[in-house]
């Protein structure tokens, strides 16, 4: 049986400016983040085109500096971080049975600070000497007014302040929602795994984001002539404060996507998440450790205590291992349906593993001295930041798209997109390990032909365009699926959690009726006791 999907209304301008419904706000944030993703992706493609051959072909060296700075900044501050919270803004109230997000007006202000900050940063492209070009972490004194003069760099600093403050406000609202708006019976140890990952994400946001805002205000003052960061100690202090934000944000850009992948794995396998309590507790340990490792980005500065930070960084493998165990335990004995969301989730765990394992190497100071500032580091953090976010994100998109829009995405196009992205990701980032090992430094616009690095660099450039074609397939999928007239219904995947107990898309108040909550898979409980209809799984439909 199929029903006709309701017609979607185009949002009005006032509805965009003043949105306070968490679903509208979350959707707007997702759209804004995706727009910045396209921009950051174009910057990456331009860089890859320049690097495809030795020598300078497309641009001046300064332009290359601007591109890698704005690529990293756009992806970190304006795409992945806001995206991680946007998923939570949309889904957390639905998962915990709340009617709305806490302080929706504050969340709306946060959204505008984020978008305004992003536009502020990108408006640097319109200035005569271009946007920020001191790298996404803009280390001092390179980011000072002597080494990097100009209006565009100032706009970069102001943009970072605004965007981070905005995302921070949204995170605070989300934390309040999780702590104060849970439905009756929804205790902390009955929250879905995805909501748990958003909770720990918000804990890092409130602890680390204010420090970045502080250091950016100080950098701005320094650039206006107030001497803040002086000499060696000033440079080290800047890095200490920056990386105090810079490492936790890496986990902000990971946890929610892990949560999304976990939900897709559990529903795809038809089993509840294995070792739930251990997973929740290890998420807390994971988060606490990720707040304690920041100076591993500074091993080679000689200004930090390498032993402490190496110890904490290496200890991260323990909670990470527990989460992987949870994933494997969920799969074992499951009746797996290989949907696109499930496959993306599986790819997420496999691809991130390469990033995580290479992380153990760079967590060791002697090895890091070797890898520092080489393409090994670029390879490592793209496997964590790109693979460890994008694959989880798309697992979540394919999983929850029918909830938000009332129609499913096309599975065939989804699997094509997955194939392109897996091939593209490994083609782009795996050769970087080898180039780094051979000594290719990061942030260079060119390299001598005699190094023989040309072949691997061409492969990487091809890989980047394969990733881009995967993203294009996704855009086509969204546009064509939205025209579909076949309604997905409230529960297309036989889900486990509360968001599948309401209509798709949910009404303004989210729930007309809240089912009782007896575990972290409340809907699965009711289905197993026969109190709630099961959605037919495809293999049952065949039988």
């Amino acid at each position, binding site marked *: 049986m199929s029903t006709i999907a309701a017609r979607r209304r185009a949002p009005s301008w006032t509805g965009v400016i003043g949105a306070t419904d968490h679903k509208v706000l979350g959707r707007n944030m997702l759209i804004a983040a995706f727009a910045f993703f396209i921009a950051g992706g174009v910057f990456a493609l331009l860089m890859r085109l320049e690097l495809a051959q030795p020598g300078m072909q497309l641009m001046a060296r300064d332009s290359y500096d601007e591109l890698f700075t704005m690529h990293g900044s756009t992806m970190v501050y304006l795409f992945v971080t806001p995206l991680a919270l946007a998923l939570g803004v949309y889904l957390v109230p639905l998962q915990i049975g709340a*009617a709305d997000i806490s302080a929706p007006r504050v969340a709306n202000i946060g959204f505008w600070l984020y978008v305004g900050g992003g536009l502020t940063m990108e408006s640097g492209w319109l200035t005569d000497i271009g946007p920020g070009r001191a790298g996404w972490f803009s280390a001092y004194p390179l980011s000072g007014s002597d080494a990097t003069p100009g209006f565009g760099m100032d706009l970069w600093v102001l943009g970072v302040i605004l965007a981070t403050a905005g995302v921070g406000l949204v995170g605070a609202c989300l934390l309040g929602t999780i702590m104060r*708006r849970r439905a009756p019976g929804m205790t902390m140890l009955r929250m879905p795994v995805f909501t748990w990952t958003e909770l720990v994400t918000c804990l890092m946001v409130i602890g680390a984001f204010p420090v970045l805002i502080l250091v950016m205000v100080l950098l701005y003052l320094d650039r206006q002539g107030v001497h803040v960061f002086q000499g060696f100690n000033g440079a080290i202090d800047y890095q200490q404060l920056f990386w105090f934000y810079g490492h936790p944000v890496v986990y902000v850009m990971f946890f929610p996507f892990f949560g999304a992948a976990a939900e897709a794995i559990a529903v795809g396998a038809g089993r509840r998440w294995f070792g739930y309590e251990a997973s929740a507790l290890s998420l*807390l*340990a994971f988060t606490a450790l990720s707040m304690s490792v920041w100076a591993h980005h500074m091993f080679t500065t000689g200004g930090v205590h390498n032993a402490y930070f190496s110890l904490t960084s290496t200890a991260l493998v323990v909670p990470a291992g527990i989460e992987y165990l949870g994933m494997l335990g969920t799969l074992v004995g499951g009746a797996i349906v290989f949907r696109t969301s499930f496959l993306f989730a599986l790819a997420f765990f496999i691809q991130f593993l390469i990033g995580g394992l290479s992380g153990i190497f760079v967590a060791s100071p002697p090895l890091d001295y070797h890898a520092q500032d080489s393409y090994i580091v670029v390879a490592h953090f793209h496997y964590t930041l790109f693979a460890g976010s994008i694959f989880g994100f798309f697992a979540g998109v394919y999983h929850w798209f029918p909830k938000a829009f009332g129609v499913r995405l096309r599975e065939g196009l989804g699997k094509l997109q997955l194939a392109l992205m897996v091939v593209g990701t490994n083609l782009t980032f795996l050769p970087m390990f080898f180039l780094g090992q051979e000594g290719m430094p990061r942030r260079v616009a060119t390299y001598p032909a005699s190094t023989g690095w040309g072949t691997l660099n061409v492969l990487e450039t091809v890989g980047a365009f394969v990733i881009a074609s995967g993203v294009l397939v996704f855009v086509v999928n969204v546009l064509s699926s939205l025209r579909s007239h076949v309604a997905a219904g409230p529960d297309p995947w036989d889900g486990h959690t509360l968001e599948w107990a309401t209509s798709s898309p949910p009404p303004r108040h989210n729930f007309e009726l809240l089912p009782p909550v007896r575990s972290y898979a409340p809907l699965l409980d009711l289905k197993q006791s026969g109190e709630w209809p099961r959605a037919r799984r495809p293999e049952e439909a065949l039988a």
Partner: protein
Amino acid sequence: MRRAAIPLLIYGAFIAGNATMLWIWGEDAVNVGAFYFAVIVTWLVALGFAAAHWKQPDGEALRERPDLTRRALPDLSFGAGITGIAIVTMVYGARFGLFLVWIGGGLLLLGFARLAAELGSQRRDSRRHVEEGRARAGIDAEDVPP
């Protein structure tokens, strides 16, 4: 104490331990200071949630008596949107030109005025909603907490 705060307290204790270990290890003030800042923020938030007594808006009654508890949710807050855009305008103006700071400041006042009006009317709406619900259900005001 509200038990929901326990995970936050566990996490707070964990980072407090790590910060103290770093301090004993003999790091510089900026390093340890940033860490303790995060510890203090976390503890304040955790203790705030542990002590919180304010009513959960979507609490028990949403399931049993949605007619009594459904809050007036704001569908739209023009005031919030204007406030956000005003702040961005002012910050941009700090570097671009003072005129933008003035325009942003004006917008900010407008946003605040609008927010105040919205919050006032929302409060009146909620109160009326609850009273109507009670009247329909024939319940005395004393029986149901506001």
